[in-house]
C-alpha cells in the first residue's frame, strides 16, 4: 500500500479517486443487472406422437406436476391448460423450473428441449397436455400474421390492458412478494400471444372471446415494434421513461461538475506563489 500513500498528494490523485468510483459504480451496476440469455424462438413443426410427449413429460415435468399432470402440493394441475401454456413455459425456459421461486425467469432451455430436436419435443409435450383436456392451442401462423396490424390501436390496447404491469414500452415491473412482470423485449409474437391466452403465473388471461385475435395482433405489433426500436443516444436505460434518464443525466453531470471543480480550484504546481 506504500505506493498509494506515497502518491496520495499527487495532482491527479483526486481525479483518480473520482474516476475509480465512477468505474466501480458502473461496473457494479452492470454486474448486478446482468443480461439474460437469448431466446430460442420455436417454429411450429407438425405434431409428434402423444406417447413421445407423455414420455418426455414423465422425464421432465412429472416430479412436480404429477405423473398424470394432475398437480401436486408444489405445482399446479396441467389438465386443461392447453398446448399454448406448455409451449410458452417450456420454449422460454421457464419450465422445467429450477426452484419453486416467486417468479420463473426466462432461462436457457432444458437439454431435452434445446438442440435440433427441441422444438419437436416441446410440441410433443404440448400435444400430450392438449390431449388430456383441451385448452388454448398454439397460435397458427395466420393468427401471428402482423401484416395489416394497427400499431396505434395496439398501443391503446396495450396501455389499457398490459401497461399497468409491463410498463408502457414493455419494460416490465415489480409485483408483490417477489413476483414481477417480465420485460417483453425478448418476447416473440408466439410467446406474447400464448401469454395473453393462457395467463402464465400471476398474469391474468385475455381470452379470444373478449380480447379478439385482431386485438392481439395489434398488441403484438406494438410490443415487437417497441422492442426493435432504436434507442436514441445509444442507451436504453431500462426504457422506463424520464426518471432513469434524468437520474443518469444528473449523476453524469454531477461527476463532470466535480471533476471540473477540482481542476479549477486545484493548487498550481510548479508555480511560485507570493
Amino acid at each position, binding site marked *: 500500500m506504500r505506493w498509494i500513500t506515497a502518491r496520495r498528494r499527487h495532482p491527479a490523485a483526486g481525479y483518480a479517486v473520482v474516476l475509480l468510483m465512477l468505474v466501480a459504480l458502473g461496473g457494479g451496476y452492470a454486474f448486478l443487472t446482468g443480461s439474460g440469455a437469448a431466446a430460442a424462438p420455436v417454429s411450429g413443426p407438425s405434431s409428434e406422437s402423444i406417447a413421445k410427449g407423455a414420455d418426455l413429460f414423465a422425464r421432465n415435468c412429472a416430479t412436480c406436476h404429477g405423473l398424470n399432470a394432475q398437480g401436486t402440493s408444489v405445482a399446479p394441475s396441467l389438465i386443461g391448460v392447453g398446448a399454448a401454456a406448455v409451449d410458452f413455459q417450456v420454449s422460454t425456459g421457464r419450465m422445467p423450473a429450477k426452484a419453486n421461486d416467486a417468479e420463473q425467469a426466462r432461462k436457457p432451455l432444458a437439454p431435452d428441449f434445446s438442440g435440433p430436436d427441441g422444438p419437436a419435443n416441446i410440441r410433443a409435450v404440448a400435444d400430450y397436455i392438449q390431449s388430456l383436456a383441451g385448452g388454448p392451442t398454439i397460435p397458427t401462423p395466420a393468427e401471428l400474421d402482423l401484416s395489416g396490424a394497427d400499431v396505434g390501436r395496439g398501443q391503446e390496447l396495450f396501455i389499457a390492458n398490459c401497461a399497468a404491469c409491463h410498463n408502457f414500452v414493455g419494460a416490465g415491473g415489480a409485483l*408483490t*412478494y417477489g413476483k414481477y412482470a417480465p420485460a417483453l423485449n425478448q418476447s416473440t409474437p408466439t410467446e406474447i400471444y400464448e401469454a395473453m391466452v393462457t395467463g402464465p403465473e400471476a398474469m391474468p388471461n385475455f381470452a379470444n372471446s373478449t*380480447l379478439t385475435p385482431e386485438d392481439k395482433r395489434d398488441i403484438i405489433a406494438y410490443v415487437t415494434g417497441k422492442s426493435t426500436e432504436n434507442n436514441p443516444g445509444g442507451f436504453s436505460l431500462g426504457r422506463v421513461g424520464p426518471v432513469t434518464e434524468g437520474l443518469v443525466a444528473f449523476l453524469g453531470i454531477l461527476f463532470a461538475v466535480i471533476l471540473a471543480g477540482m481542476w479549477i480550484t486545484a493548487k498550481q504546481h510548479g508555480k511560485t506563489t507570493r
Partner: protein
Amino acid sequence: MTETNGPAGPEQPAETTPDETPEGPRRVVGTPPPAQARALLVRPEDEEKPPPERELPSEPDDLDRAKKAEKVVASLFILAMLAGFGFIAAYIGLEVHSLDAVLRSNLVLGLAMAIAFLALGAGAVIWVRQLMPEVELTEARKPLRSSPEDRAAFKETFEEGADASQFVKRPILRRTLIAATVPVAVAPIVLLRDMGPLPGTSLRHTAWRKGTRLVQAVTGVPVRSADFATPGGILTVVPEGYLENDEELAKSTVLLIKLRPEQLEKPTVMNWTVDGTVAYSKICTHLGCPAALYEQTTHHILCPCHQSTFDAARGAAVIFGPAARPLPQLPITTDSEGYLVAQSDFHEPVGPSFWERG
C-alpha cells in the same frame, strides 16, 4: 422642482446649504445638499491614504511555461470558434423534415454547442491558472450601515420631498390615490374564482346507471357474460357511450375480474356479482391512480403509485399500503341478451377521499 441647477457636484462651495440660504440654488429632490455631496463620494479619511502599492506582477514567473499555455489557450479558443461556426452551419445545412433528421440535427447542434462552450471554458480556466498570477488578496468590506451624515441627509431629503409633493397637505389627492390602488390589490383574489366551480355532488356520482352496459375500454365492445368465462381473466370496462369522455372515464373506469364463484368471500357483495365476475372501481382510493396490476394467482390488485394492495376475492379489502378504503364494488348483472350491465351507480364515491366525503 422644475428649475434645476444640475446635480450638485463636489465643486460646489461647501459653506452654503439651501437650508441656511433660501435664496441659494435649488436642488433636485433626491440629491444630497452640497455640503454632504463631497462626503458621499469620498470620505476625508480615504483621501489621506497613499495610492495602494502595485500587488500583482505583470509577467508570469516562468515565461516558457506561459508561452506553452498561451498556445494551448489560443488553440482552445480557435476550437470554440470553429465549433460555433459549426453550430451555425449545422443549423443552416441540416434538414429537419423527418424524425430521424431532427434527431441527427439535434445531435450535431448539441455536440457543436457543447464543444464550443467546453473549449471556451477550458481555455479561460487554463488562462487563469497558467498565465495570471496566483496572489491572495484581501479586500476589507465597508460597513453596511451608512454614516450618520448620510442618514441625516436622507431624512432631510425625504421630508423635503414629502413636503414638496404636498402629499400631506392635500388629503383628497392622497385618499384618491390610495382608493385607486385598492381594486388592483383585490384583483388577484377575485381571479381565484377561476379555480372553481366547486365540484358540488359530481364527486359522488359516476356515469353508471341501471342497465348501462359494460363495454371494453378502447374497443367499446360490450362484454357478454358467457364470453368472459375463464377464471383469472380481467378486463378494463367503461360505461357504454362514454368511451371518448375522458373526464367521465377518470371516475367511471372499472376493472372487471373473473374468479371461480367459490373464491369470492365476504365482504364482497355476492348479489352484485355474476357467476364469479366482480367489478371494482379502477380508481385507487388513495390518490386516484389506476389500480390495475392484477395477480390472478393471489387475486391481489396492486396500485402502481404507492403499492396499495387490494384483495379482489374479499371485496377489494385493503391488505397493504396507504389506501384507507376498499375499491368500491359496482353492482352488475346481465340483461336479457346476456350482456353485463350495471344494476345502479356505485353506492359510495369512487376515488380518493375528499374533505366533504364524510
